[in-house]
């Protein structure tokens, strides 16, 4: 009962946040709606019994990436000053106009028709199996990370180091020579 209510609230939060990101015209509001959508995904992880993944989602995504994006929005001003490009033609506004939205919806429709065929097959032939009870997953994940998936673990640490150094080098102010 409680899990059903949590599932419904999380699903509404996820889908509503995703559609609000599409429909809003303000980049700051889009960041906040993305925050609600990611919170909903974390709630869905909880209903699936993935407690460690839900906690990581909350800490890294909601607390880290969205805050980083809000900082980037604040640092870049978010206004399109010049309305014309270098050829003198009028530019598309920053958050898109009807033309770009039409192209995007047509693309989404094509992808929808392609994927719904696959998903309908899955739904049709999927047999309901008994679902395992909720157990703590932290210990199992910790054991798997240092036994079966240790190579991916080490590679991800190197990737994070590279991303950190790369971001620092790119964003560093350069001296005029």
């Amino acid at each position, binding site marked *: 009962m409680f899990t059903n209510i949590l599932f419904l609230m999380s699903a509404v939060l996820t889908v509503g946040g995703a559609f609000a990101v599409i429909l809003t015209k303000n980049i700051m509001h889009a960041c906040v709606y993305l925050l609600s959508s990611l919170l909903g995904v974390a709630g869905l992880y909880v209903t699936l*019994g993935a407690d460690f993944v839900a906690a990581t989602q909350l800490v890294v995504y909601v607390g880290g990436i969205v805050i980083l994006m809000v900082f980037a929005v604040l640092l870049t001003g978010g206004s399109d000053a010049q309305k014309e490009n270098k050829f003198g033609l009028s530019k598309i506004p920053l958050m898109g106009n009807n033309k770009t939205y039409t192209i995007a919806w047509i693309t989404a429709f094509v992808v929808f028709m392609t994927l719904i065929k696959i998903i309908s097959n899955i739904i049709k032939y999927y047999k309901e199996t008994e679902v395992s009870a909720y157990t703590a997953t932290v210990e199992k994940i910790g054991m798997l990370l240092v036994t079966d998936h240790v190579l991916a673990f080490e590679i991800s640490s190197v990737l994070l180091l590279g991303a950190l150094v790369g971001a620092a080098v790119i964003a560093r102010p350069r001296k005029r020579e």
Partner: protein
Amino acid sequence: MMTLSSYLMISFILFLAGIVVMIARKNMIAMLLGIELILNAAALNFVAYTKFVNQNMDGHIFPLFIIVVAAAEAAVGLAIVIRFYQIKETIHIDDATQLQS
């Protein structure tokens, strides 16, 4: 209500929303928001299949690596956006034409 198909539909809607945001927007940061939505849809699929189909823990490991890669991608992408804004004073994607000529 909590079946595999409902989770698949939610992640499907997230994926489509990410595609629409990525194509319709001309703001670099807004396009990054679309990429985050698509990555979340993929991770949700992994966890849902782990719960309902094979029930080993590998489907919980992969979303962790997806989150790590998304964090690295957001850090580097936003550094590039801020650097671009320092040079061109705009974040319109159509102004990034220096490699064209």
